[in-house]
């Protein structure tokens, strides 16, 4: 088995898992849910094996380095971190409804990495600037953070949908009739969803902070400036501020779950722009997108 076979298989496994979780969400199919968990777990294991294989292969090619050095590899790690975080949340909250909102991100990331024309998938040697252990720490911490924010965003959307449904129902003076609950009624209560969003943001914030800091240390060791306001750095800071709003909003009256859910969505757009948009629309030191 080569790493590209394993990682290619992962893409389809996550597609299957997405499909199974959608069955759970739409048809309340319990058995599909158990299968979904099993398939996701297999996906994570296959992907982990793929990542390790890719690492080993790079050493066999004599240009050994951790698989965290280009856009493709970062997409793989991103997807891996999403699937893994989701599994942890599923175990803690014992609810499979959320899978339909997390697995699509894991699948989309792998699919984009595997099929997009502009992405280079070969294992290539590291240019001198990237030959640093800080790079490894930097990419790894950033992507754990991004994955947590992706999960927060998916669950934030869920919160907004459920919240709207409940408010509409209240406005119409209706009640839930037993046996006729919709998908959204079967989700955990809004308060619990809010808590999951908050915890994901908190977790992501810690890793994003670590990501920004390791990036600064790396920049300082490579060219003597820990912060140069290059567009990617600046966007990571913007993202950081957005999530800082979410952390502090809880201490301001009137900022309930709905606004936090919106911040989870907007924050993730900011993450996507930092991660991806900057490379294509703005110029700067970070060369991931172009290489």
């Amino acid at each position, binding site marked *: 088995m080569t790493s590209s076979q394993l990682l290619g298989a992962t893409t389809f496994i996550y597609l299957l898992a997405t499909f199974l979780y959608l069955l759970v969400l739409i048809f309340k199919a319990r058995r599909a849910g158990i299968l979904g968990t099993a398939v996701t777990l297999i996906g994570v294991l296959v992907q982990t094996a793929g990542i390790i294989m890719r690492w080993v292969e790079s050493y066999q090619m004599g240009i050994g380095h951790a698989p965290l050095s280009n856009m493709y590899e970062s997409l793989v790690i991103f997807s891996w971190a999403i699937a893994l975080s989701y599994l942890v949340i599923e175990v803690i909250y014992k609810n499979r409804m959320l899978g339909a909102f997390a697995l699509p991100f894991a699948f989309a990331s792998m699919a984009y990495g595997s099929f997009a024309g502009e992405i280079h998938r070969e294992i290539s040697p590291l240019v*001198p*600037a990237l*030959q640093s252990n800080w790079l490894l720490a930097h990419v790894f911490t950033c992507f754990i953070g991004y994955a947590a924010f992706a999960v927060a965003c998916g669950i934030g959307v869920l919160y907004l949908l459920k919240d709207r449904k409940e408010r509409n129902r209240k406005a119409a003076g209706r009640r839930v009739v037993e046996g006729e609950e919709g998908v959204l009624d079967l989700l955990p209560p809004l308060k619990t969803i809010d808590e999951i969003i908050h915890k994901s943001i908190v977790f992501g914030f*810690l890793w994003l902070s*670590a990501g920004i800091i390791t990036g600064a240390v790396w920049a300082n060791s490579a060219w*003597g400036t820990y912060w140069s306001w290059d567009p990617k750095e*600046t966007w990571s*800071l913007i993202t950081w501020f957005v999530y800082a*709003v979410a952390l502090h909003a809880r201490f*301001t009256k009137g900022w309930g779950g709905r606004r936090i859910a919106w911040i989870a969505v907007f924050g993730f757009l900011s993450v996507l722009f930092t991660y991806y948009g900057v490379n294509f629309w703005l110029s700067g030191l970070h060369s991931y997108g172009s290489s």
Partner: protein
Amino acid sequence: MKEKNVLWEFFTSVKLAIFTFLALAATSIIGTIIPQNEPFGFYVENFGPRWATIFKYLNVPDMYHAWWFVSLLVLFSLNLIACSLDRIPNVVRILRKDNLAVDIERLEKRGKNRRLLSALPLEQAADKLRGLLAGSGWSFASRERDGGVLFFAEKGGWTRFGVYTVHGSILVIFIGAIIGSIWGYKASVMIAEGTSTDQVYARDERHTPIPLGFRLRCDRFLLTYYANGMPKDYISDLSVIKDGKVVLQKRIEVNDPLQYAGLTFYQSSYQPIDNQYVIYLKNTTSGAFQNFIVMPLRQMRWEEENVAFGIVERRNPNMLGQYQHKIWFSDGKGSPVSFWVSENQPVRLERPGATYTVEVKQRFATGLQVAKDPGVWPVYIGCTLMLLGLAVVFFMSHRRIWIWVRPEPQGGGCRIVLSGNANKNRDGLEKDLDKIESLLNSSNELQVQGG
């Protein structure tokens, strides 16, 4: 109650913090869209003279140092300081509070309390509890009150300072950045192989020379490639020379700079020097060696070894991209020879009197970035504090537990009420209470039962 001061209220409010977060985020976008630090003409060309003038007035071309952006940062810092000064006394008050003076009636009525019955008389039950708590890792105290005994135990009081560590760390980072911008500088220098410099050039428009106070010599520059032609490494061998003596030698490469006297020298670029080569000659029999800077068709002499040599011809690269040089060589023993060598490939040369190695390479100048930043350590300390603080804030909590033991009028036993409070992570607290409850239950003599 403290007098409420409008200004103080303004600076301590979390709403202001949210406003500054959003304002900093929104304005920061400008500098990622409008290229920074370009000459005025660039903005005229791309945005028209009117916008260029507005930009100039608002210092948009260097917006992260513009007065209005810096003002936002100052507002942000004042907010942070005021907010912490406002709240830290509260934290101290909470930690110093006499928790054994709580209103027992209210304590008994708290929701989520756990109630147990024990067959032991009050005194023995209280002693037993003391023993159990002593070995549990909780710091506790007890007091006789209203005919019973009240216990208080807590863990993680210090974690309430986690938030303030995070907030303080931001100020420490700012202080580091300010120190760096006042007492530090960024400069660069090109040093040709075999030469040295005692000054570097500031990164301003006039490239002001800055004296180093020592000499820095480039002994050798190396460029290596991967098999596919991608650059693998840029390497310089540097020597620091103080009062005519070499005090430090280091091979630097990208990501591995040289540090000396508060300065850091980074490998950043290189330049081949036209029509100049470096030849390394070594007499492997006697061990003598020397480097020579050589121009083609010039005869060179190595006096100590009585050797004369030169480059007489050059040929375009072979399949590996190496230039070929034809060397003429004479050491006075046997007739002179000439032979081809590939660049960067040492060759052995057997002569009647001795054996030599000869290596030819392009002569380069190495380009170094120079940074002096005495603020880096405060910045790194601030970063470390921030991560530690965040970990404390997010994963730890201050948990407090009250155990109220009072005699049960009927049967001679006593009643135990367990009540807890945590500043966050209520689930964790419930687990702690479970643990204490099962500790009580598992102790035979207490013979506790749900009640």
